[in-house]
């Protein structure tokens, strides 16, 4: 310490001396490529904080003492050092040629240069997504890099897709990556982050990069870094995007009213025949010609035609040729639940900095109206990020952001609830009107002259009788507000020259309030009215202390990090629900008479960790790093809660070796490899909500018997559960060749998950259905390829193409029992977690149109022997189950092309996957054999009708819907390959000269489109909806077309 103090003193004296002998140096910095002046380049005396920046002409002027070395740094360009000895004017060119290598990459608890990085990290800079109309940052990750898999996500305004990195790491624990925002684990909602505030997103894919996050890093880490001001670059930016939302995936092709009635007639007629009624009687009954017996009109409830109820379908099964629709314009429910939504985003930010202090402030407003009625999302967000070098040795900063979100949500919580407009509109038969009509087909109007919603009490049983999703979504309230306040601050002390001690403190507070109201006219609240309020406050604190040591001596550079971190998240929730509204128009709980529900709870999650990392490099040629973390979590029993995680990594810059250095076409060649472990403690329930107390056997409160207190055994604990652990190995090559025109990387990973946290299904007869257990092992191994080619690089025209390809194989390698069957999947060693286990569909019997399955028991129920000897069954309970393919694609990836021509830029991103299968459950519901009132796919027109018909669609027969439409049969599997025009941008940069005249530094106008076209095996199929491959009635992604403007002053 004494020595250090002495050193400090010497330095201080030398600074004082220096003042006496200054001299000016001037110069100009230009772009090596085209000679254009570079504005905002930092010119600094090496190893000091003294410096300046270049002006708009690229010129600078700096006073120096002696003959220091000047350092020129500029984002995206190679840093250059120039000796000033004997010079008073220094003109230099900065080259972007080694751009890829000098780029700063954000990693765990710090940054590194891309060229020195030994881990599988992908960084996505803001310019990749800056002009896209995205409300949720996760959307920007689709197709951004290999190894990142996204699902289609929800189109509900504000929502984004789910992300999986390098396969699927968990079965019943969460497979979501850990999000880190500005250095701190983030458990808030991603939609609370303003995309325009984000500078970069780093995706840490392998253990060597992520294991420093220990307990929660098993599924990869996504680090979001918000913007900062830049020294000497004071600027004001204004941006505006205006666009509109429409449905991104079209509806399935469904039969129309005239096709529908005869089909359902056939379903009834055949059901009667199956039940033993004679054919001619059945024909007459279905046509409604037998008095006292229900005909097809009685079963469907509605006659939308201008003919008598018993004359709609003749005994020949054909629609009455005179039948015309009474209200053909009122049968389109899809049109009734959708609209063209408007999306607007407006922002302003200003930033800048001096040598010692930088600042960034922003304000942004987003209004996103969804394409489904009554769904919208409004967000107002602000951020202030100020950092200052307070003294030579102390640096501190504050990054504060506040967000206010207000949103109406379409109720799609349950795939098949009546109030779900997607379900309702898709499945209601084409003969039911949205509004009421009189006998002539004219709209019935209320006393204000408005159309009256048709509640349809007498619709067919499968046409949501008594409900109307259009009316319900307009009359109900399903909304929330969320206020988020995030604060990050740090103090950083530099001491003893090579040491830096940092402490980070962060607080995230989210206040969420949801309003629910079910109206008095139709639906779950009718006739009395029902109101609910949820209030949840989530507070998380993170506190960490980091000690960094960095030292370079000769060719050796060593970096050591020691740290401690603890995290505390508390969620407090209150829910109340009351019934019987007093006066209309007020849905506050006061305005009801009876309390149905009232409860509150608090949930707490805490972790604590100690960690360390050591980096060493020799001559920027050989790199090694090692990291260790010890983590404890509140989610496990005290004896099992601590886990140790570590990683090692190495890199070799081969291009720096002499034997390659001279190979002119190789610009960079780096080998890297790593191995490490990370953990997962995120036990979740079937709805993906976290389970905080999985190890404890619990009796649930709220089981009071009238007024007597009661509790019920609902959770079998398991004190033995512990960390699910991930062991990953990674080896890769990064390269830049042909004058840096082709860059890329290829890597192989092998990621093994052990001690899988699993909700082991128990016999129902034990009285408890699952127990959380660490049961098995799973491997994800795959290959990733990333290529970027600058195909054209001329003065006026440029074309860059990126290609990302990923393929991986997921395989269970150890299970405690031979097989675990879970819905449409069966887990067994040698298979993936998403291998389908389904009834083996055989086809349709040409003789009678029955649905056939391969028989499980050849002498069992419903068995038939086909002419070719195959033993099949018509009884689904005797259908054989078998492995029927996987939901995991063989290959997925993206292609991104960027063209520039003079002032124009055009880029488009195509994402795709090949192979894998979708279990199209929503399609299955449209292929029913005659559920009265349920809509039908046009594929049903290929049904079996008479002996000898060769088809794969069974006969219409309402009595056989269970057997013919058996869920969990491979009849519903479809190829999951798709090609998605994910995003297109066309931009125009206003010429500099012109901008200057308008007192602007830069201006850019653009057009962009999201989800422009999806090509898949079936129209309507939401092919990438879920990683499990199973479709349901969800809010599908939106197509967003927008125009925008960006101005920098």
């Amino acid at each position, binding site marked *: 310490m004494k020595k250090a103090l002495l050193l400090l003193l010497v330095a201080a004296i030398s600074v004082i001396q220096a003042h006496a002998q200054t001299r000016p140096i001037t110069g100009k910095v230009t772009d090596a490529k085209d000679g254009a002046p570079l504005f905002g380049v930092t010119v600094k005396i090496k190893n000091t904080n003294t410096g300046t920046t270049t002006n708009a002409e690229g010129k600078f002027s700096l006073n120096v003492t002696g003959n220091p070395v000047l350092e020129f740094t500029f984002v995206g360009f190679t840093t250059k050092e120039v000796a000033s000895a004997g010079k008073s004017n220094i003109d230099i060119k900065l080259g972007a040629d080694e751009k890829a290598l000098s780029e700063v990459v954000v990693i765990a608890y710090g940054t590194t240069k891309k060229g020195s990085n030994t881990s599988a990290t992908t960084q996505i800079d803001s310019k990749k997504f800056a002009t896209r109309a995205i409300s949720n940052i996760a959307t920007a990750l689709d197709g951004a890099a290999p190894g990142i898999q996204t699902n289609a996500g929800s189109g509900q305004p504000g929502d984004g897709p789910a992300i999986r990195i390098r396969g699927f790491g968990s079965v019943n624990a969460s497979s979501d990556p850990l999000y880190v925002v500005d250095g701190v684990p983030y458990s808030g909602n991603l939609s609370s982050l303003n995309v325009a505030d984000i500078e970069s997103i780093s995706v840490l894919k392998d253990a060597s990069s992520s294991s420093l996050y220990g307990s929660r890093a098993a599924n990869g880490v996504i680090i979001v870094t918000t913007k900062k001001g830049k020294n000497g670059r004071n600027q004001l930016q204004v941006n505006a995007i205006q666009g509109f939302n429409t449905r991104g995936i079209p509806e399935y092709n469904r039969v129309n009213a005239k096709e529908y009635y005869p089909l359902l007639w056939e379903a009834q007629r055949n059901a*009667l025949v199956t*039940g033993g009624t004679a054919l001619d009687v059945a024909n007459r*009954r279905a046509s409604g010609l037998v008095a006292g*017996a*229900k005909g097809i009109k009685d079963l469907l409830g509605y006659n939308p035609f201008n003919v008598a109820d018993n004359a709609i379908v003749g005994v020949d099964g054909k629609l009455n040729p005179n039948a015309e629709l009474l209200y053909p314009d009122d049968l389109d429910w899809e049109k009734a639940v959708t609209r063209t939504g408007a999306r607007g985003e407006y922002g302003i930010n200003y930033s800048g900095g001096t040598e010692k202090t930088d600042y960034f402030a922003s304000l942004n407003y987003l209004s996103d109206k969804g394409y489904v009625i009554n769904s919208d999302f409004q967000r107002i967000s602000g951020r202030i990020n100020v950092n200052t070098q307070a003294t030579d040795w102390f640096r501190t900063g504050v990054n504060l952001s506040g967000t206010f979100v207000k949103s109406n949500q379409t109720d799609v919580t349950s795939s098949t609830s009546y109030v779900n407009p997607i379900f309702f509109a898709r499945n209601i038969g084409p003969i039911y009107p949205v509004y009421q009509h009189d006998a002539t087909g004219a709209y019935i109007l209320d006393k204000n002259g408005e159309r009256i919603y048709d509640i349809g*009490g*007498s619709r*067919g*049983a499968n046409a*949501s*009788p*008594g409900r109307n999703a259009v009316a319900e979504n307009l009359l109900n309230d399903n909304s929330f507000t969320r206020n988020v306040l995030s604060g990050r601050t740090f*103090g950083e002390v530099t*001491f003893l020259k090579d040491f830096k*001690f940092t402490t980070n403190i962060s607080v995230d507070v989210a206040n969420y309030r949801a309003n629910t109201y079910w109206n008095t006219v139709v639906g779950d609240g*009718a*006739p009395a009215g029902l109101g609910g309020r949820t209030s949840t406050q989530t507070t998380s*604190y993170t506190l*960490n202390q980091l000690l960094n040591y960095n030292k370079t001596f000769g060719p050796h550079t060593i970096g050591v990090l020691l740290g401690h971190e603890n995290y*505390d998240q508390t969620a407090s929730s209150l829910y109340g629900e009351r019934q*019987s509204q007093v006066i209309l128009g007020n849905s506050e709980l006061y305005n009801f008479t*009876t*309390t*149905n529900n*009232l409860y509150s*709870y608090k*949930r707490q*999650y805490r972790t*604590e960790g100690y960690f360390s990392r050591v980096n060493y490099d020799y001559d920027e040629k050989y790199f090694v790093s090692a990291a260790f973390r010890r983590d404890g*979590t*509140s989610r496990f029993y005290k004896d099992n*809660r601590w886990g140790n995680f570590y990683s090692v990594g190495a890199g070799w810059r081969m291009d720096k070796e002499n034997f390659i250095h001279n190979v002119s076409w190789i610009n960079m060649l780096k080998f890297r490899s790593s191995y490490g472990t990370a953990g997962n403690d995120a036990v979740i329930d079937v709805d993906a909500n976290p389970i905080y107390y999985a190890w*404890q*056997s*619990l*009796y*649930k*409160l*709220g*089981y009071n018997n*009238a007024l*007597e*207190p*009661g*509790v*019920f*055994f609902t959770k079998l604990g398991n004190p033995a559960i512990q960390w699910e652990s991930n062991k990953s190995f990674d080896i890769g090559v990064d390269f830049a060749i042909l004058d840096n025109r082709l860059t890329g990387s290829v890597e192989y990973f092998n990621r093994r998950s052990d001690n899988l946290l699993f909700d082991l*299904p*128990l*016999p*129902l*007869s*034990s009285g*408890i*259905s699952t127990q959380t257990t660490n049961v098995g092992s799973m491997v994800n191994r795959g290959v990733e390829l990333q290529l970027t080619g600058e195909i054209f690089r001329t003065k006026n025209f440029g074309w860059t193409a990126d290609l990302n390809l990923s393929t991986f194989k997921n395989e269970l390698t150890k299970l405690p029992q031979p097989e675990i*069957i879970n819905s449409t999947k069966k887990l067994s060693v040698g298979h993936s977690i998403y291998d389908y286990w389904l009834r083996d569909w055989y086809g349709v019997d040409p003789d009678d149109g029955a649905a056939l399955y391969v028989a499980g028991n050849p002498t069992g*129920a419903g068995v038939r022997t086909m002419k070719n000897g195959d033993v099949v069954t018509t009884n689904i*309970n*005797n259908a054989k189950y078998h492995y029927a393919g996987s939901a995991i694609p063989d290959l997925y990836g993206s292609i991104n092309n960027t063209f520039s021509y003079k002032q124009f830029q055009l880029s488009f991103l195509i994402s795709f996957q090949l192979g894998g299968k979708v279990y199209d459950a929503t399609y299955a519901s449209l292929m029913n054999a005659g559920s009265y009132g349920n809509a039908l796919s046009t594929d049903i027109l290929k049904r079996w009708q008479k002996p000898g018909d060769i088809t794969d669609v069974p006969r219409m027969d309402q009595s056989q819907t269970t057997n013919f439409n058996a869920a*969990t049969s491979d009849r519903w599997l479809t190829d999951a390959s798709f090609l998605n025009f994910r995003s297109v941008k066309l931009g125009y940069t206003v010429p500099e000269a012109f901008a200057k005249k308008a007192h602007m530094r830069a201006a850019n106008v653009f057009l962009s489109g999201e989800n422009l076209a999806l090509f898949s095996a079936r129209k309507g199929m939401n092919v990438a909806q879920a990683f499990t491959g199973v479709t349901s009635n969800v809010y599908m992604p939106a197509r967003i077309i927008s125009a925008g403007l960006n101005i920098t002053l």
Partner: protein
Amino acid sequence: MKRILYIFIAFAVSGASLTSCKKDYLNTSPTEAIEEGQVFTDTKGGWAALNGIHRAMYSAYDNQDQTGQSTIMIDGDMLGEDLVMTSAGNGWFNASYQWTMHRNTSATHLKFVYYFYYRIIANANKIINQIDGVSGNDADKKAIKGEALTYRAWAHYMLVQLFGARYDAAKKPNNQAGVPLQTKFTIEPQPRATVEAVYTQINKDLNDALTNLTGYSRAAKSHFDSVVVYGLKARVALTMQDWSGAATNAEVVINKGGYSLMSNTDYVKGFNSAENAEWIWASRPTDDQTTAFNGFFAYMSVNFSSSNIRSNPKAINKNLYAYLTATDIRSQLWDSTGKKFTVPTADFKKYPYMNQKFIAKGASSSVGDVPYMRLAEMYLIDAEAKAQLGQEGNAADALYTLAHNRDVNYVKSSNTGQALKDEIAIQRRLELWGEGFRFFDLKRQNLPVDRSGSNHDAALALVLKVPAGGVNWQWLFPQDEVNANPKLEQNPL
């Protein structure tokens, strides 16, 4: 500067230790549940665990057609011929009505029924296994244990009737496969015990329950006391064709239970209040335990404003209704014209023979007490058992007490032999309509379902006749049980 530095570091480090170095920093506990160990510390916890089971009887589970015992009561009538669906409504219970639900191993409703009873058994076993060791007075412990034993017996009884082959007194021991028998809480897969073994355990549990419940006076009709246990013993004996056992136990309830048949005025009040003098065992939800669209009255009442009730009021088989005389108070429970009943709004569809036996508290509240055992059933058991025993005079007497209460003009039966048995059966069907007995009665008596020639519509029912004794009378085990229990053998398909 050095000092500032030290102060800063010290501050930062101590800040860390303040929040985290406490030993219990990582110990967190739930607030919406209680750890099992804390439940079984004293009798207060034991009572709470028991009341939880009472509550589970009318809790709503995963779906709208999964509300405790009331759901299975509805199934019991859906499978029979006495309850008529007037339309398909909005689809609920159609598969039960059409005899497909319980024969579809993937049906979520089937899984619910099976799992529901085993959850009750698991909760009862937890109590039975642990209550002796808790602090508190012995009287409480005995009462808690007695009630838990009753639940275990009753749940096994329901399961074996549904999933096992019919009990046949003529071929004792009944070695056909029954259901897994759980006498302690375990997650080990259990094979199916024989029907005989299951009934043996049921009777043992009921007898043990009686020992424990003797002298205990219960807090509410949702609880079990010795009278309910006698009633259950009578039911079980009837199912086992143990006629004397059935009569003896039914008589205990009739003579010593302290219940009396309800007045005709009470009879038409809607079967929704456990205050009723002849209700012996019932669930009693409070207003804030609303079952909304799930509960019994959401499917069976005349007036609750659910899509199901509005479009599909439940009716009685017109052939059964024909047995009612004009002076029989029960004739007022159904409307053969389909026009008379008052319904809340014009949206409510009316059909001939629809019922108003069950009346919900209001169009917007499906809350109502659900009857599980009434004194009337005991008279019917007594009469049936005595008729089977050949004590025809006593049988007619027992029947008269009940039938005369319902119809002042009822004349004591002079029927004998099969005619008397048939008359008792008709009275039973009329009296217990809608209370979930029909499937169980048909199965224990080895009778067919015959819905033909009535107001059942073939297009809705699909199945008009089911012959007696076939494989379809055994419910299939849900696929989830088959998947997780390698020792369990599925019923014949």
